[in-house]
Protein backbone atom coordinates (compact mmCIF):
# COMPACT_ATOMS: atom_id res chain seq x y z
CA UNK A 1 0.00 0.00 0.00
CA UNK A 2 1.50 3.31 -0.98
CA UNK A 3 1.39 6.19 1.45
CA UNK A 4 -1.22 8.91 1.21
CA UNK A 5 -0.31 11.82 3.47
CA UNK A 6 -3.01 14.30 4.42
CA UNK A 7 -1.90 17.65 5.79
CA UNK A 8 -4.69 19.39 7.71
CA UNK A 9 -3.93 23.10 7.84
CA UNK A 10 -4.86 25.85 10.27
CA UNK A 11 -5.72 29.35 9.12
CA UNK A 12 -6.81 32.72 10.43
CA UNK A 13 -8.34 35.67 8.61
CA UNK A 14 -7.76 34.19 5.19
CA UNK A 15 -4.11 33.24 5.75
CA UNK A 16 -2.35 29.98 6.41
CA UNK A 17 -0.91 29.64 9.91
CA UNK A 18 2.91 29.86 9.80
CA UNK A 19 3.26 26.42 11.35
CA UNK A 20 0.93 24.95 8.73
CA UNK A 21 3.44 25.91 5.99
CA UNK A 22 6.02 23.96 7.99
CA UNK A 23 3.57 21.05 8.22
CA UNK A 24 3.17 21.13 4.42
CA UNK A 25 6.96 20.90 4.03
CA UNK A 26 7.05 18.03 6.55
CA UNK A 27 4.13 16.21 4.94
CA UNK A 28 5.72 16.52 1.49
CA UNK A 29 9.01 15.12 2.80
CA UNK A 30 7.21 12.24 4.51
CA UNK A 31 5.28 11.41 1.32
CA UNK A 32 8.46 11.52 -0.71
CA UNK A 33 10.34 9.28 1.76
CA UNK A 34 7.51 6.73 1.68
CA UNK A 35 6.96 6.99 -2.06
CA UNK A 36 3.42 8.35 -1.78
CA UNK A 37 1.40 11.48 -2.36
CA UNK A 38 0.72 14.53 -0.20
CA UNK A 39 -2.64 16.25 -0.10
CA UNK A 40 -3.86 19.24 1.91
CA UNK A 41 -7.14 19.64 3.77
CA UNK A 42 -8.70 22.93 4.85
CA UNK A 43 -11.87 23.37 6.90
CA UNK A 44 -13.81 26.58 7.48
CA UNK A 45 -16.32 28.94 5.97
CA UNK A 46 -15.40 31.21 3.09
CA UNK A 47 -11.95 29.64 2.88
CA UNK A 48 -11.50 30.39 -0.82
CA UNK A 49 -8.32 32.48 -0.33
CA UNK A 50 -6.69 29.79 1.84
CA UNK A 51 -7.64 27.05 -0.65
CA UNK A 52 -6.13 29.20 -3.39
CA UNK A 53 -2.91 29.66 -1.42
CA UNK A 54 -2.75 25.89 -0.89
CA UNK A 55 -3.27 25.39 -4.63
CA UNK A 56 0.16 26.92 -5.15
CA UNK A 57 1.94 24.05 -3.41
CA UNK A 58 3.14 20.76 -4.85
CA UNK A 59 0.20 18.64 -3.64
CA UNK A 60 -1.92 15.95 -5.30
CA UNK A 61 -5.12 17.64 -4.10
CA UNK A 62 -6.51 20.37 -1.87
CA UNK A 63 -9.58 19.06 -0.08
CA UNK A 64 -11.91 21.87 0.98
CA UNK A 65 -14.71 21.51 3.54
CA UNK A 66 -16.59 24.82 3.45
CA UNK A 67 -19.67 25.16 5.65
CA UNK A 68 -21.21 27.64 8.05
CA UNK A 69 -20.91 25.09 10.87
CA UNK A 70 -17.12 25.33 10.38
CA UNK A 71 -16.94 29.15 10.47
CA UNK A 72 -15.40 28.96 13.96
CA UNK A 73 -13.09 26.13 14.87
CA UNK A 74 -14.71 23.68 17.30
CA UNK A 75 -13.47 20.16 18.11
CA UNK A 76 -16.91 18.74 17.26
CA UNK A 77 -17.02 20.51 13.91
CA UNK A 78 -13.52 19.47 12.86
CA UNK A 79 -13.64 15.91 14.22
CA UNK A 80 -17.08 15.27 12.68
CA UNK A 81 -15.99 16.27 9.17
CA UNK A 82 -12.50 14.79 9.33
CA UNK A 83 -13.58 11.43 10.81
CA UNK A 84 -16.02 10.94 7.93
CA UNK A 85 -13.41 12.08 5.39
CA UNK A 86 -10.70 9.78 6.75
CA UNK A 87 -13.05 6.81 6.41
CA UNK A 88 -13.96 7.78 2.83
CA UNK A 89 -10.48 8.61 1.57
CA UNK A 90 -8.35 6.34 3.78
CA UNK A 91 -5.10 8.34 4.01
CA UNK A 92 -2.28 6.45 5.73
CA UNK A 93 -0.96 9.53 7.55
CA UNK A 94 -2.53 12.73 8.83
CA UNK A 95 0.01 15.49 9.44
CA UNK A 96 -0.68 18.62 11.47
CA UNK A 97 1.32 21.43 13.02
CA UNK A 98 1.79 20.96 16.78
CA UNK A 99 -0.31 24.05 17.57
CA UNK A 100 -2.69 24.49 20.49
CA UNK A 101 -5.73 24.25 18.21
CA UNK A 102 -4.54 21.06 16.55
CA UNK A 103 -3.44 19.36 19.78
CA UNK A 104 -6.93 19.94 21.16
CA UNK A 105 -8.73 17.92 18.50
CA UNK A 106 -6.16 15.53 16.97
CA UNK A 107 -6.29 13.00 19.82
CA UNK A 108 -10.07 12.99 19.68
CA UNK A 109 -9.93 12.46 15.92
CA UNK A 110 -7.53 9.54 16.36
CA UNK A 111 -9.93 8.05 18.92
CA UNK A 112 -12.95 8.62 16.64
CA UNK A 113 -11.40 6.75 13.70
CA UNK A 114 -9.55 4.11 15.74
CA UNK A 115 -6.20 5.28 14.38
CA UNK A 116 -2.78 5.87 15.93
CA UNK A 117 -1.50 8.98 17.64
CA UNK A 118 1.96 10.56 17.72
CA UNK A 119 2.00 14.17 18.92
CA UNK A 120 5.02 16.51 18.84
CA UNK A 121 7.30 14.77 16.36
CA UNK A 122 10.65 16.46 15.79
CA UNK A 123 11.78 14.31 12.89
CA UNK A 124 11.60 10.96 11.15
CA UNK A 125 13.73 8.48 9.24
CA UNK A 126 13.27 4.94 7.96
CA UNK A 127 14.96 1.72 9.02
CA UNK A 128 14.42 -1.83 7.71
CA UNK A 129 11.11 -2.09 9.59
CA UNK A 130 9.60 1.24 8.59
CA UNK A 131 9.48 4.77 9.92
CA UNK A 132 11.18 5.75 13.17
CA UNK A 133 9.97 9.06 14.65
CA UNK A 134 11.70 11.33 17.11
CA UNK A 135 9.95 13.28 19.85
CA UNK A 136 10.98 14.89 23.15
CA UNK A 137 9.99 13.35 26.49
CA UNK A 138 10.41 14.49 30.09
CA UNK A 139 10.25 18.17 29.20
CA UNK A 140 12.83 17.82 26.44
CA UNK A 141 15.49 16.36 28.75
CA UNK A 142 15.42 13.19 26.66
CA UNK A 143 14.75 12.43 23.01
CA UNK A 144 12.73 9.31 22.26
CA UNK A 145 12.79 7.19 19.10
CA UNK A 146 9.26 6.01 18.55
CA UNK A 147 7.54 3.58 16.21
CA UNK A 148 3.85 3.63 15.31
CA UNK A 149 2.48 0.13 15.96
CA UNK A 150 -1.28 0.70 15.80
CA UNK A 151 -3.86 0.84 13.01
CA UNK A 152 -3.86 3.47 10.23
CA UNK A 153 -4.24 6.32 9.89
CA UNK A 154 -1.35 7.65 11.96
CA UNK A 155 -2.02 11.17 13.19
CA UNK A 156 1.22 13.03 13.74
CA UNK A 157 1.92 16.65 14.70
CA UNK A 158 5.21 18.39 13.97
CA UNK A 159 6.80 20.67 16.55
CA UNK A 160 7.39 24.26 15.45
CA UNK A 161 10.64 24.84 13.57
CA UNK A 162 11.33 21.21 12.60
CA UNK A 163 10.70 22.09 8.95
CA UNK A 164 11.09 25.44 7.21
CA UNK A 165 7.84 26.82 5.82
CA UNK A 166 9.76 28.22 2.85
CA UNK A 167 11.02 24.70 2.06
CA UNK A 168 7.50 23.58 1.07
CA UNK A 169 7.63 22.70 -2.63
CA UNK A 170 5.43 24.81 -4.86
CA UNK A 171 3.29 23.55 -7.72
CA UNK A 172 -0.26 23.45 -8.88
CA UNK A 173 -2.82 21.48 -6.86
CA UNK A 174 -6.44 20.86 -7.88
CA UNK A 175 -9.27 21.75 -5.48
CA UNK A 176 -11.61 18.93 -4.41
CA UNK A 177 -14.76 19.52 -2.35
CA UNK A 178 -15.09 17.58 0.89
CA UNK A 179 -18.43 16.66 2.45
CA UNK A 180 -18.92 18.90 5.50
CA UNK A 181 -22.33 17.61 6.58
CA UNK A 182 -20.96 15.73 9.60
CA UNK A 183 -19.79 18.96 11.32
CA UNK A 184 -21.25 18.97 14.83
CA UNK A 185 -20.04 22.07 16.73
CA UNK A 186 -19.82 21.22 20.44
CA UNK A 187 -19.15 24.63 21.94
CA UNK A 188 -20.39 28.18 21.66
CA UNK A 189 -17.67 30.78 21.14
CA UNK A 190 -18.40 33.76 23.40
CA UNK A 191 -15.35 35.83 22.57
CA UNK A 192 -11.61 36.27 22.58
CA UNK A 193 -9.77 38.26 25.22
CA UNK A 194 -6.22 39.39 25.72
CA UNK A 195 -4.48 37.87 28.69
CA UNK A 196 -4.43 40.47 31.47
CA UNK A 197 -1.11 42.16 32.01
CA UNK A 198 0.73 45.41 31.62
CA UNK A 199 1.76 44.67 28.05
CA UNK A 200 5.49 44.72 28.27
CA UNK A 201 6.75 44.27 24.73
CA UNK A 202 9.79 42.07 25.19
CA UNK A 203 10.21 41.70 21.44
CA UNK A 204 11.69 45.20 21.24
CA UNK A 205 14.34 44.58 23.92
CA UNK A 206 17.99 44.27 22.83
CA UNK A 207 18.96 42.33 25.92
CA UNK A 208 16.67 40.02 27.87
CA UNK A 209 17.47 38.33 31.18
CA UNK A 210 15.06 35.44 31.59
CA UNK A 211 14.48 33.54 34.80
CA UNK A 212 13.14 30.02 35.28
CA UNK A 213 12.04 27.60 37.94
CA UNK A 214 15.62 27.29 39.17
CA UNK A 215 15.32 30.62 41.02
CA UNK A 216 13.40 28.59 43.60
CA UNK A 217 11.41 31.42 45.15
CA UNK A 218 9.83 34.71 44.09
CA UNK A 219 11.64 36.47 46.96
CA UNK A 220 14.93 35.78 45.27
CA UNK A 221 14.19 37.77 42.12
CA UNK A 222 16.21 40.75 43.43
CA UNK A 223 19.45 39.32 42.06
CA UNK A 224 17.79 38.99 38.63
CA UNK A 225 16.56 42.59 38.82
CA UNK A 226 20.08 43.75 39.68
CA UNK A 227 21.57 41.84 36.77
CA UNK A 228 18.96 43.22 34.35
CA UNK A 229 19.61 46.74 35.62
CA UNK A 230 23.38 46.43 35.14
CA UNK A 231 22.76 45.43 31.52
CA UNK A 232 19.84 47.77 30.78
CA UNK A 233 17.88 44.60 30.01
CA UNK A 234 14.22 43.61 30.20
CA UNK A 235 13.25 40.70 32.46
CA UNK A 236 11.47 37.70 30.98
CA UNK A 237 10.51 34.33 32.43
CA UNK A 238 9.64 30.76 31.58
CA UNK A 239 6.22 29.40 32.36
CA UNK A 240 6.69 27.97 35.90
CA UNK A 241 7.78 31.40 37.22
CA UNK A 242 4.59 32.94 35.83
CA UNK A 243 2.36 30.11 37.08
CA UNK A 244 3.78 30.57 40.58
CA UNK A 245 2.81 34.23 40.43
CA UNK A 246 6.43 35.42 40.83
CA UNK A 247 6.20 37.59 37.71
CA UNK A 248 3.20 38.84 35.68
CA UNK A 249 2.08 36.85 32.67
CA UNK A 250 3.17 39.48 30.15
CA UNK A 251 6.80 38.57 31.00
CA UNK A 252 6.38 35.02 29.73
CA UNK A 253 8.57 33.84 26.85
CA UNK A 254 7.63 30.75 24.87
CA UNK A 255 4.84 29.14 22.91
CA UNK A 256 2.12 30.55 25.16
CA UNK A 257 3.94 33.85 25.74
CA UNK A 258 6.07 36.21 23.68
CA UNK A 259 8.45 35.37 20.88
CA UNK A 260 11.63 37.41 21.05
CA UNK A 261 14.82 37.94 19.10
CA UNK A 262 17.21 40.01 21.25
CA UNK A 263 20.92 40.34 20.49
CA UNK A 264 21.72 38.90 23.93
CA UNK A 265 19.59 36.44 25.89
CA UNK A 266 20.63 35.29 29.34
CA UNK A 267 18.69 32.28 30.65
CA UNK A 268 18.97 31.87 34.41
CA UNK A 269 17.71 28.64 35.98
CA UNK A 270 15.78 27.73 32.82
CA UNK A 271 16.05 24.08 31.80
CA UNK A 272 14.95 24.75 28.22
CA UNK A 273 11.71 22.88 27.58
CA UNK A 274 10.79 23.05 23.90
CA UNK A 275 7.82 25.31 24.69
CA UNK A 276 10.29 27.86 26.00
CA UNK A 277 12.89 27.38 23.26
CA UNK A 278 10.43 28.20 20.47
CA UNK A 279 10.01 31.65 22.04
CA UNK A 280 13.70 32.57 22.17
CA UNK A 281 15.39 30.76 19.33
CA UNK A 282 15.68 34.03 17.37
CA UNK A 283 18.19 35.41 19.92
CA UNK A 284 21.64 36.08 18.45
CA UNK A 285 23.77 35.24 21.48
CA UNK A 286 22.48 32.97 24.22
CA UNK A 287 23.99 32.56 27.70
CA UNK A 288 22.73 29.85 30.06
CA UNK A 289 23.29 29.52 33.79
CA UNK A 290 21.96 26.28 35.27
CA UNK A 291 22.97 23.83 37.97
CA UNK A 292 22.09 20.86 35.75
CA UNK A 293 24.83 20.28 33.16
CA UNK A 294 22.37 18.13 31.18
CA UNK A 295 19.71 20.85 30.87
CA UNK A 296 18.59 21.17 27.22
CA UNK A 297 19.19 24.94 27.35
CA UNK A 298 22.94 24.28 27.05
CA UNK A 299 22.23 22.64 23.70
CA UNK A 300 21.06 25.94 22.23
CA UNK A 301 23.29 28.30 24.23
CA UNK A 302 26.53 29.88 22.99
CA UNK A 303 28.00 30.21 26.48
CA UNK A 304 27.16 28.28 29.60
CA UNK A 305 28.03 28.31 33.27
CA UNK A 306 27.11 25.22 35.27
CA UNK A 307 26.52 26.02 38.91
CA UNK A 308 24.43 27.70 41.58
CA UNK A 309 22.69 30.72 40.10
CA UNK A 310 22.50 32.36 43.53
CA UNK A 311 26.30 32.66 43.47
CA UNK A 312 26.83 33.19 39.75
CA UNK A 313 24.25 35.91 39.11
CA UNK A 314 25.60 38.39 41.72
CA UNK A 315 29.14 37.72 40.46
CA UNK A 316 27.99 38.37 36.90
CA UNK A 317 26.28 41.62 37.92
CA UNK A 318 29.47 42.72 39.60
CA UNK A 319 31.61 41.84 36.57
CA UNK A 320 29.28 43.75 34.23
CA UNK A 321 29.29 46.84 36.46
CA UNK A 322 33.09 46.79 36.54
CA UNK A 323 33.32 46.35 32.78
CA UNK A 324 30.92 49.24 32.20
CA UNK A 325 32.78 51.45 34.66
CA UNK A 326 36.08 50.64 32.94
CA UNK A 327 34.56 51.53 29.56
CA UNK A 328 33.52 54.85 31.09
Amino acid sequence: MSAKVWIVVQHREGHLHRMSREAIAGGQQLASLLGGTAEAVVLGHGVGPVAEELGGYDLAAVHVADAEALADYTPGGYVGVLAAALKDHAPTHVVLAHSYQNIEYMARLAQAVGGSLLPEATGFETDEEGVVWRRPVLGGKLQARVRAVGPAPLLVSFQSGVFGGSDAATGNAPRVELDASAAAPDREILGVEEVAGEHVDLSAAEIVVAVGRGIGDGDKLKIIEALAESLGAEIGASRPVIDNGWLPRDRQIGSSGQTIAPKLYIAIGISGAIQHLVGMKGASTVVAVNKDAEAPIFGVADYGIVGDLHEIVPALTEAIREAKAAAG
Partner: protein
Amino acid sequence: MKIAVCVKQVPDTEARLRVAGDGRWVDEENLPFVINESDEYALEEALQIAERTVGEVVVLSIGPARVREALRKCLALGAHRAMHLSDEAFAGGDAMATGRALAAAIAREGFDLVLTGSQSDDVGSGSTGSIVAGHLGWPHAWLVMGVELEEGNSSAKVTREMESGMNEVLRIQLPAVLEIQAGLNHPRYASLKGIMQAKKKEMAEVSAADLGLDGAAIGASGATVEILSVAFPESGEGARIIEGDASSAAQELVDRLQKEARVL
Protein backbone atom coordinates in the same frame (compact mmCIF):
# COMPACT_ATOMS: atom_id res chain seq x y z
CA MET B 1 -21.54 17.81 41.54
CA LYS B 2 -19.74 14.54 41.24
CA ILE B 3 -16.32 15.22 39.75
CA ALA B 4 -13.65 12.79 38.57
CA VAL B 5 -10.04 13.99 38.49
CA CYS B 6 -7.51 11.93 36.53
CA VAL B 7 -3.99 12.34 37.88
CA LYS B 8 -0.69 10.90 36.79
CA GLN B 9 2.36 10.25 38.90
CA VAL B 10 5.50 11.40 37.06
CA PRO B 11 9.22 11.72 37.81
CA ASP B 12 10.01 14.96 39.66
CA THR B 13 11.02 17.47 36.96
CA GLU B 14 13.97 18.49 39.13
CA ALA B 15 15.24 14.92 39.46
CA ARG B 16 18.45 13.76 37.90
CA LEU B 17 17.58 11.26 35.20
CA ARG B 18 19.42 8.14 34.07
CA VAL B 19 18.52 6.01 31.10
CA ALA B 20 17.38 2.52 32.15
CA GLY B 21 19.42 -0.58 31.29
CA ASP B 22 17.18 -1.55 28.37
CA GLY B 23 17.49 2.00 26.98
CA ARG B 24 13.74 2.39 26.55
CA TRP B 25 12.85 4.68 29.46
CA VAL B 26 14.44 6.27 32.51
CA ASP B 27 15.69 4.16 35.39
CA GLU B 28 12.95 4.41 38.03
CA GLU B 29 15.04 3.08 40.88
CA ASN B 30 15.47 5.80 43.54
CA LEU B 31 13.73 8.25 41.22
CA PRO B 32 11.49 10.68 43.14
CA PHE B 33 7.90 10.75 41.83
CA VAL B 34 5.36 13.55 42.22
CA ILE B 35 1.83 14.36 41.06
CA ASN B 36 1.99 15.77 37.53
CA GLU B 37 1.97 19.57 37.79
CA SER B 38 -1.12 20.42 35.71
CA ASP B 39 -3.03 17.58 37.43
CA GLU B 40 -2.45 19.36 40.76
CA TYR B 41 -4.18 22.41 39.33
CA ALA B 42 -7.01 20.19 38.02
CA LEU B 43 -7.49 18.73 41.51
CA GLU B 44 -7.53 22.20 43.09
CA GLU B 45 -10.16 23.36 40.58
CA ALA B 46 -12.26 20.27 41.31
CA LEU B 47 -12.02 20.83 45.07
CA GLN B 48 -13.14 24.44 44.65
CA ILE B 49 -16.09 23.45 42.44
CA ALA B 50 -17.07 20.71 44.91
CA GLU B 51 -16.95 23.20 47.78
CA ARG B 52 -19.32 25.53 45.94
CA THR B 53 -21.73 22.80 44.81
CA VAL B 54 -21.54 20.47 47.82
CA GLY B 55 -20.08 17.83 45.56
CA GLU B 56 -17.80 14.85 45.63
CA VAL B 57 -14.30 14.59 44.17
CA VAL B 58 -13.01 11.16 43.13
CA VAL B 59 -9.36 10.87 41.99
CA LEU B 60 -8.30 8.21 39.51
CA SER B 61 -4.84 7.09 38.52
CA ILE B 62 -3.29 4.27 36.51
CA GLY B 63 0.06 2.80 37.44
CA PRO B 64 2.06 0.50 39.68
CA ALA B 65 1.88 0.38 43.49
CA ARG B 66 3.86 3.66 43.85
CA VAL B 67 0.83 5.51 42.41
CA ARG B 68 -1.02 4.95 45.71
CA GLU B 69 1.26 7.53 47.29
CA ALA B 70 0.08 10.18 44.80
CA LEU B 71 -3.55 9.20 45.34
CA ARG B 72 -3.06 9.37 49.11
CA LYS B 73 -1.74 12.91 48.71
CA CYS B 74 -4.84 13.86 46.68
CA LEU B 75 -7.00 12.49 49.51
CA ALA B 76 -4.99 14.55 52.01
CA LEU B 77 -5.63 17.64 49.90
CA GLY B 78 -9.38 17.03 50.12
CA ALA B 79 -10.47 14.48 47.51
CA HIS B 80 -13.20 12.24 48.93
CA ARG B 81 -12.28 8.90 47.38
CA ALA B 82 -9.60 7.39 45.19
CA MET B 83 -9.61 4.75 42.48
CA HIS B 84 -6.36 3.02 41.63
CA LEU B 85 -6.49 1.32 38.25
CA SER B 86 -4.04 -1.33 39.24
CA ASP B 87 -3.44 -4.19 36.85
CA GLU B 88 -0.40 -5.48 34.99
CA ALA B 89 -2.62 -5.29 31.88
CA PHE B 90 -2.66 -1.46 32.09
CA ALA B 91 1.15 -1.19 31.97
CA GLY B 92 2.92 0.26 28.95
CA GLY B 93 -0.13 2.01 27.53
CA ASP B 94 0.05 5.15 25.41
CA ALA B 95 -2.54 7.96 25.60
CA MET B 96 -4.95 5.93 23.43
CA ALA B 97 -4.83 2.82 25.65
CA THR B 98 -4.78 4.74 28.94
CA GLY B 99 -7.62 7.03 27.84
CA ARG B 100 -9.74 3.97 27.03
CA ALA B 101 -9.17 2.47 30.50
CA LEU B 102 -9.85 5.74 32.35
CA ALA B 103 -13.04 6.30 30.32
CA ALA B 104 -14.28 2.82 31.25
CA ALA B 105 -13.76 3.52 34.95
CA ILE B 106 -15.50 6.90 34.67
CA ALA B 107 -18.43 5.47 32.71
CA ARG B 108 -18.91 2.66 35.25
CA GLU B 109 -19.52 5.16 38.09
CA GLY B 110 -21.12 8.06 36.27
CA PHE B 111 -19.83 11.62 36.79
CA ASP B 112 -21.04 15.16 36.05
CA LEU B 113 -17.60 16.51 35.17
CA VAL B 114 -14.09 15.20 34.51
CA LEU B 115 -11.02 17.33 35.13
CA THR B 116 -7.43 16.45 34.33
CA GLY B 117 -4.19 18.25 33.57
CA SER B 118 -3.52 19.33 29.98
CA GLN B 119 -0.24 17.52 29.64
CA SER B 120 1.95 15.10 31.57
CA ASP B 121 5.49 16.15 32.43
CA ASP B 122 6.89 12.78 31.34
CA VAL B 123 5.41 11.55 28.04
CA GLY B 124 3.68 14.86 27.39
CA SER B 125 1.36 13.90 24.57
CA GLY B 126 -1.37 16.24 25.86
CA SER B 127 -3.98 13.79 24.63
CA THR B 128 -5.33 11.53 27.35
CA GLY B 129 -8.20 13.78 28.49
CA SER B 130 -9.39 14.33 24.91
CA ILE B 131 -9.43 10.57 24.34
CA VAL B 132 -11.41 10.01 27.55
CA ALA B 133 -13.94 12.58 26.27
CA GLY B 134 -14.15 10.78 22.92
CA HIS B 135 -14.99 7.46 24.57
CA LEU B 136 -17.59 9.10 26.80
CA GLY B 137 -19.06 11.07 23.89
CA TRP B 138 -18.71 14.31 25.90
CA PRO B 139 -17.38 17.67 24.71
CA HIS B 140 -13.91 18.65 25.90
CA ALA B 141 -11.59 21.63 26.05
CA TRP B 142 -7.79 21.67 26.31
CA LEU B 143 -5.54 24.25 28.05
CA VAL B 144 -8.37 25.46 30.27
CA MET B 145 -7.49 28.66 32.17
CA GLY B 146 -10.88 29.30 33.79
CA VAL B 147 -14.06 27.40 34.67
CA GLU B 148 -17.32 29.06 35.67
CA LEU B 149 -20.39 26.88 36.17
CA GLU B 150 -23.61 28.36 34.82
CA GLU B 151 -27.23 28.23 35.97
CA GLY B 152 -28.30 24.73 37.00
CA ASN B 153 -24.78 23.33 36.42
CA SER B 154 -25.82 22.20 32.94
CA SER B 155 -23.17 24.27 31.18
CA ALA B 156 -19.90 26.03 31.94
CA LYS B 157 -18.14 29.13 30.71
CA VAL B 158 -14.63 27.99 29.95
CA THR B 159 -11.56 30.10 29.20
CA ARG B 160 -9.12 28.36 26.90
CA GLU B 161 -5.56 29.47 26.24
CA MET B 162 -4.66 30.22 22.64
CA GLU B 163 -1.31 31.07 21.14
CA SER B 164 0.14 34.61 21.24
CA GLY B 165 -1.27 35.78 24.56
CA MET B 166 -4.97 35.43 23.75
CA ASN B 167 -7.68 33.45 25.53
CA GLU B 168 -10.90 32.19 24.00
CA VAL B 169 -14.06 32.17 26.11
CA LEU B 170 -16.55 29.49 25.24
CA ARG B 171 -19.67 27.81 26.56
CA ILE B 172 -19.62 24.05 26.83
CA GLN B 173 -22.46 21.72 27.84
CA LEU B 174 -21.92 19.41 30.80
CA PRO B 175 -20.97 16.68 31.37
CA ALA B 176 -17.62 17.49 29.79
CA VAL B 177 -13.91 16.78 30.12
CA LEU B 178 -11.86 19.88 30.93
CA GLU B 179 -8.08 19.62 30.54
CA ILE B 180 -6.61 22.14 32.94
CA GLN B 181 -3.57 24.30 32.23
CA ALA B 182 -1.10 24.95 35.04
CA GLY B 183 -1.50 28.39 36.57
CA LEU B 184 -5.28 28.87 36.71
CA ASN B 185 -5.50 28.69 40.51
CA HIS B 186 -3.26 28.32 43.56
CA PRO B 187 -3.14 24.67 44.65
CA ARG B 188 -3.52 24.31 48.41
CA TYR B 189 -1.12 22.53 50.74
CA ALA B 190 -2.16 19.47 52.68
CA SER B 191 -3.00 20.20 56.32
CA LEU B 192 -2.04 17.85 59.15
CA LYS B 193 -5.75 17.18 59.65
CA GLY B 194 -6.10 16.38 55.95
CA ILE B 195 -3.17 13.96 56.09
CA MET B 196 -4.71 12.18 59.10
CA GLN B 197 -8.15 12.00 57.46
CA ALA B 198 -6.68 10.66 54.20
CA LYS B 199 -5.68 7.45 55.98
CA LYS B 200 -9.34 6.61 56.57
CA LYS B 201 -10.60 7.48 53.09
CA GLU B 202 -11.51 4.83 50.53
CA MET B 203 -8.92 3.78 47.98
CA ALA B 204 -10.45 1.21 45.63
CA GLU B 205 -8.32 -1.12 43.54
CA VAL B 206 -9.80 -1.60 40.06
CA SER B 207 -8.68 -4.25 37.58
CA ALA B 208 -9.18 -4.50 33.83
CA ALA B 209 -11.67 -7.33 34.42
CA ASP B 210 -13.67 -5.11 36.82
CA LEU B 211 -14.09 -2.66 33.94
CA GLY B 212 -14.90 -5.36 31.40
CA LEU B 213 -11.89 -4.34 29.31
CA ASP B 214 -10.30 -6.60 26.73
CA GLY B 215 -6.61 -7.04 27.48
CA ALA B 216 -5.74 -6.49 23.81
CA ALA B 217 -7.19 -2.95 23.89
CA ILE B 218 -5.28 -1.64 26.91
CA GLY B 219 -1.72 -1.30 28.17
CA ALA B 220 1.14 -2.10 25.82
CA SER B 221 -1.14 -4.31 23.66
CA GLY B 222 -3.55 -1.44 23.06
CA ALA B 223 -0.86 1.20 22.52
CA THR B 224 -0.55 2.74 19.05
CA VAL B 225 3.01 3.97 19.52
CA GLU B 226 6.00 2.29 21.11
CA ILE B 227 9.14 3.94 22.46
CA LEU B 228 12.17 2.14 21.00
CA SER B 229 14.80 4.06 22.91
CA VAL B 230 15.47 7.27 24.79
CA ALA B 231 18.69 9.25 24.93
CA PHE B 232 20.00 12.57 26.13
CA PRO B 233 20.12 14.98 23.19
CA GLU B 234 23.53 16.15 21.99
CA SER B 235 23.22 18.74 24.71
CA GLY B 236 26.08 20.97 25.80
CA GLU B 237 27.56 20.73 22.31
CA GLY B 238 26.23 24.16 21.44
CA ALA B 239 27.42 25.95 24.56
CA ARG B 240 31.00 26.78 25.42
CA ILE B 241 30.98 25.86 29.10
CA ILE B 242 32.94 28.34 31.16
CA GLU B 243 34.62 26.71 34.14
CA GLY B 244 35.89 28.12 37.40
CA ASP B 245 34.45 29.65 40.57
CA ALA B 246 31.55 32.08 40.33
CA SER B 247 33.57 35.28 40.09
CA SER B 248 36.21 34.06 37.63
CA ALA B 249 33.56 32.39 35.44
CA ALA B 250 31.51 35.61 35.48
CA GLN B 251 34.61 37.62 34.58
CA GLU B 252 35.47 35.34 31.66
CA LEU B 253 31.87 35.37 30.41
CA VAL B 254 31.74 39.19 30.38
CA ASP B 255 35.08 39.21 28.59
CA ARG B 256 33.83 36.84 25.90
CA LEU B 257 30.55 38.72 25.50
CA GLN B 258 32.54 41.91 24.91
CA LYS B 259 35.36 40.66 22.71
CA GLU B 260 34.10 37.48 21.05
CA ALA B 261 30.32 37.90 20.72
CA ARG B 262 30.55 41.74 20.80
CA VAL B 263 27.14 42.10 22.39
CA LEU B 264 28.18 44.21 25.39
